[in-house]
């Protein structure tokens, strides 16, 4: 029997008893990042393939959501910083060993490309907005530029989308100190999940039956892959080192079991899959907007739970001998 106790109280806020450094902001940022990646990936693909007649929403209306979603995501990231005024420090150095440094520089590339992608589809997608932008010389210049380099922009968009999508997963999986994150499956999982979220956004936005039908099929495939990746991730953890096995156990019992299965897998993955399958069988009804909403919810929950699980999983398992809450009397 081993009794391991902290005999001096340790209660560093947000670190003890287990990490709580990241609340909703980082999951929301990761979700927005993944969604942006999915949007850019689909939009760039359609632009490159010149299928805008066939997929009008994706090719014309969807791109503008990339910079918007990304901006909101970056706002969330900013909100998470505890030393906010030094945010500019991200851009005074490049740290090749730091995924977060890579991420911040990737974002710096993604951002203008996402704007150019939006710009080159603006006049068809949102004619009124296109006219508005054209009134300003700089706006017109950007739109004209993007239209001239449509293919190049879309190529960049495609590549950066994949980078961005992977990055949101690598950001976490690079933390070897957190057993639940330390698996190579997170990057593809987050990329696929971002694409699935983007597909859900398409289902919500499109009025085109063909587009809807196709993206329902795409989403079914993506959700299936996602499910498989989740299963592989859990298997990977459950067959890993001691701390990883312990981490995987958190979803099979303990405090994360209900959130994971009842609030994530069933409503956020299984239900949209079933509903979209029904829809494919031609049983679509007006309330079917529920399935993409659930898919988006599932996309966020995946990140939220992953972030929480990773923070809870640890190499250490120290318990205070005395009530750490008593230190609040001093703070």
């Amino acid at each position, binding site marked *: 029997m081993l009794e391991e106790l902290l005999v001096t*109280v340790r209660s560093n806020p947000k670190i003890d008893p287990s990490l709580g450094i990241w609340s909703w902001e980082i999951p929301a940022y990761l979700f927005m990042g993944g969604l942006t990646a999915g949007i850019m990936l689909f939009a760039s693909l359609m632009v490159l393939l010149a299928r805008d007649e066939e997929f009008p929403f994706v090719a014309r209306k969807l791109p503008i959501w990339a910079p918007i979603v990304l901006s909101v995501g970056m706002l969330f990231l900013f909100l998470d910083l505890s030393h906010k005024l030094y945010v500019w420090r991200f851009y005074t150095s490049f740290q090749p060993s730091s995924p977060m440094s890579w991420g911040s520089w990737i974002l710096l590339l993604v951002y203008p490309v996402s704007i150019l992608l939006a710009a080159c589809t603006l006049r068809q997608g949102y004619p009124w907005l296109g006219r508005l932008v054209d009134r300003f010389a700089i706006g017109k210049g950007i739109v004209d530029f993007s239209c001239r380099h449509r293919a190049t922009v879309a190529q960049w968009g495609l590549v950066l989308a994949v980078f961005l999508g992977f990055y949101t997963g690598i950001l976490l999986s690079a933390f070897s100190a957190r057993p639940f994150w330390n698996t190579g499956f997170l990057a593809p999982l987050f990329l696929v999940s971002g694409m699935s979220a983007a597909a859900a956004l398409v289902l919500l936005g499109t009025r085109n039956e063909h587009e809807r039908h196709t993206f329902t099929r795409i989403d079914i495939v993506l959700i299936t892959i996602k499910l498989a990746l989740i299963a592989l991730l859990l298997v990977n953890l459950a067959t890993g080192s001691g701390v990883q096995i312990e981490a995987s156990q958190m979803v099979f019992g303990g405090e994360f079991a209900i959130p994971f299965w009842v609030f994530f897998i069933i409503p956020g993955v299984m239900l949209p899959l079933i509903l979209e399958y029904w829809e494919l069988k031609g049983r679509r009804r007006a309330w079917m907007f529920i399935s993409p909403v659930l898919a988006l919810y599932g996309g966020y929950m995946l990140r939220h739970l992953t972030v929480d699980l990773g923070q809870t999983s640890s190499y*250490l398992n120290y318990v205070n001998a005395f009530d750490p809450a008593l230190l609040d009397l001093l703070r």
Partner: protein
Amino acid sequence: MIRYGMVIDTQLCIGCGDCVVACKTENKLPAGLNRDWVVEATRGRYPDLTTEFRSERCNHCSHATCVHTCPTGASHLWKDTNIVLVDPGKCTGCKACIAACPYDARLIMTPDGYIDKCTFCHHRVEKGEDPACVSSCPTHCMHFGILDEPSSAVSRLLASRQQKVLLDETGNQPNVYYLI
């Protein structure tokens, strides 16, 4: 690179916590924040028991995942040593380094929000003194010095006694050793 390390004799440590108070006063830490702490491990069943006391802190790892993960270079190595410091002027408070540390040895400084940690009291080391925790320890169970120097007290202790490090399996190559 000069590799500084600590060697702590768990057989002499009594778990008194002097190191914790000394650290807090020396470094003027706000109440409720700790850069070091003491763990007591009891093994066995009554009446066949052993105890081990460990004063723990940042391990100033040779493979410092916290430094690697820092996106701004705020987490850095002091001069040409393994002493890991945080430059508050570069720290955004992204907290990635906290997640990167398997020892949970970092903390968020209040009220400013930058990330703080054990510095091995580099301001004392610079003057040739031991860190505050080491120099306060009433049992003299803590030792500090240069690990790669064969004549140093820490090297001699490591050469003569059984030892362990914490979480060797993470690959962080910690530089705080425990004599067992």
